[in-house]
């Protein structure tokens, strides 16, 4: 008996975990580049929201076909990963189906349910793939989906099918070896799906089937470790981030926009006659920047949102501006934010922990003003997101920068705002005429 496979397994497994941990740290660092925002209040309400929306998938089913398919893959993923525990223990200890003797007949139930879910996942993934590539749903065809996003989406589906196929092949060959009473393959598990695959091995030698079983077993675990590390480069990060994202998502009424504290301070000063407008601000006080022109001006919640986005496009398909052919796509706002954040993160990595200005920013280089000015702030995108992402808040923050730092609102809006300033109404009417309607009764 040699320890070589155990050692190879341990090296592969811990390297896989270590690379993943390194990338998780990077994500956390990048999210922390955002400005602070308190989202730790009302924790019981937040837990409930997370359980309902992320764990319970409550918003997925508003679109029943995609919703049901997604729940199959989601439940399948969670359930089949229980098997991963056994695979890891087997790999490290050199055992085979280590849990079987302890769980007795319940082990059969477990393996059987894994198999059924594996098959269901393959079926669901097939439908997902057709929806993306054959049915050509409009929301998968927007311009921001060209290139990597489309490849990424399909790669995820292919990887899932490969993993499930390896899992079933592993079981099928195991089952074949069990029935041939080969040493080390004691009867364990129930194989409602793979028993139909195992006859394919009839006529092969025991040694070949053992080789198939071992190959499938190794490729399966290597595939999982690969997939784990693929997440960082993919929209598929949502399988983890959906949970914190729904926990930290907004719990106030959707219509409520934040009131900028930095503005409140200045407005109070302006409205306070005894205050000296020429007084020097306290030394330690940094001059506040109003609104956002780059990712560092956004809050950490908005940056977490960006990493969490699965690019499903429900937001964009509900967006009135997008539906009527405007440039705005809320999904693109999220994708641009993540791309820029990644770019800033890489800049920090290459410059030894310091961001060196690269002459680029989120505004204009990624998100155009035309997109920002197309928004009606109707909250359809926020409502549509199955995992609590808020593209509207980013749009508003960027409008704030455009108006308060750049004075570059569309001229119609400047007129409206000067009317409010001068007459207290968005139209040029005298405030003294506010009650004229009373005489028309």
């Amino acid at each position, binding site marked *: 008996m040699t320890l070589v496979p155990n050692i190879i397994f341990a090296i592969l497994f811990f390297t896989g975990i270590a690379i993943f941990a390194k990338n998780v740290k990077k994500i956390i660092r990048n999210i922390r580049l955002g400005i602070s925002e308190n989202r730790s209040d009302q924790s019981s309400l937040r837990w409930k929201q997370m359980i309902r929306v992320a764990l319970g998938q409550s918003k997925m089913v508003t679109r029943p076909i995609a919703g049901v398919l997604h729940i199959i893959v989601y439940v399948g993923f969670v359930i089949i990963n229980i098997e991963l525990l056994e695979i890891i223990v087997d790999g490290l200890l050199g055992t085979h189906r280590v849990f079987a003797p302890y769980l007795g007949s319940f082990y059969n139930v477990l393996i059987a349910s894994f198999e059924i879910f594996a098959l269901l996942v393959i079926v669901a993934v097939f439908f997902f793939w057709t929806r993306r590539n054959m049915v050509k749903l409009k929301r998968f065809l927007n311009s921001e989906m060209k290139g990597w996003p489309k490849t990424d989406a399909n790669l995820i589906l292919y990887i899932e099918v490969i993993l499930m196929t390896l899992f079933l092949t592993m079981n099928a060959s195991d089952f074949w070896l069990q029935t041939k009473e080969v040493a080390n393959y004691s009867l364990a598990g129930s194989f409602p799906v793979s028993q139909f695959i195992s006859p394919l091995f009839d006529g092969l030698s025991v040694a070949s089937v053992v080789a198939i079983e071992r190959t499938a077993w190794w490729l399966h675990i290597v595939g999982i470790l690969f997939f784990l590390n693929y997440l960082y480069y993919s929209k598929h990060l949502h399988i983890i981030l959906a949970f914190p994202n729904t926990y930290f998502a907004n719990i*106030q*009424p*959707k*219509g*409520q*926009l934040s*009131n*900028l504290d930095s*503005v*409140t301070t*200045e*407005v109070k000063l302006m*409205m306070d006659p005894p205050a000296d407008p020429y007084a020097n601000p306290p030394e330690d006080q940094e001059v506040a920047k*109003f*609104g956002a022109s780059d990712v560092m001006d956004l809050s950490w919640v908005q940056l977490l949102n960006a990493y969490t986005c699965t690019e499903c496009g429900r937001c964009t398909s509900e967006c*009135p*501006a997008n*539906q*009527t*052919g*405007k*440039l*705005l796509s809320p999904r693109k706002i999220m994708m641009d934010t993540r791309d820029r954040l990644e770019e800033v993160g890489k800049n920090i990595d290459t410059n030894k922990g310091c961001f060196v200005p690269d002459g680029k920013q989120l505004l204009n280089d990624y998100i155009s003003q*035309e997109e920002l000015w*197309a928004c*009606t*702030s*109707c*909250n*359809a995108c*926020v*409502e549509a997101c199955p995992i609590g992402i808020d593209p509207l808040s980013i749009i*508003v923050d960027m*409008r*704030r*920068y*455009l*108006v*308060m730092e750049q004075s570059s*609102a*569309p001229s*119609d*809006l400047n*007129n*409206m*705002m000067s009317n*409010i*300033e001068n007459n*207290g*109404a*968005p*139209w040029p*009417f005298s*405030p003294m*005429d*506010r*009650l004229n*309607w*009373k005489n028309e*009764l």
Partner: protein
Amino acid sequence: MSQQISIPTLAEMIQEGKKPEVLFWVGCAGSFDDRAKKITKAFVKILHQASVSFAVLGAEESCTGDPAKRSGNEFLFQMQAMANIEVLNGYEVQRIVTACPHCFNTLKNEYPSLGGNYEVVHHTQFLKGLLEDGRLKVEGGQFKGKRITFHDPCYLGRANNEYEAPRNLLHKLEAEIVEMKNCKQKGLCCGAGGAQMFKEPEKGNKDINIERTEQALEKQPNIIATGCPFCNTMMTDGIKNKEKEASVQVMDVAELVAQAKDL
């Protein structure tokens, strides 16, 4: 109207030592826009009929700052808000009703952290309350059996989760309520929100209000009901664009209630 309805300002009322049950926040559209003024007038007629003691701010009312805030001008918004809060707190206002969902949302959600804490209700919620308290009776009248589709204002619906109050009132009119394919949580915006009302739309292949009007017309309604003066404008324009003015009316829920009562 045979009977003169008095519209006291809060200043006048307080001078007389009286305190109204509720402050009616008319809003800029309700004060100045010819179409929206009709909604204002319909609403005060109902208030009068139900013997609600109310007052308005008149010249002391100023824009809540909603369109400025949603354009990104947080300065202007907070200046407006603080000036309004000074007036409202000066009069110790506790309860506000408004027929504009934008004013409603801003007063209710965005004023508290600036020091303005009031109970704010939308006029459809207020009217529903009057019905429940038995102070207002609504029967179908001329709208009995009419096909009415309700266009959810974003700032009442998604923004503040109120979908039922306007529908309850329409139900009382014994109308046949037909829902558009996008309604309630999935309601399509009329195109006016986020200060779009005050600017030309960005480049596209259709105006949003036309898209929404088409959704409404699919249901072949006699009336498109709204609960927002801006939605009303957008839908009215949409109906004109489709040359359907003769067969489809765009009316606020308050106007429907007032007309059903022959006010």
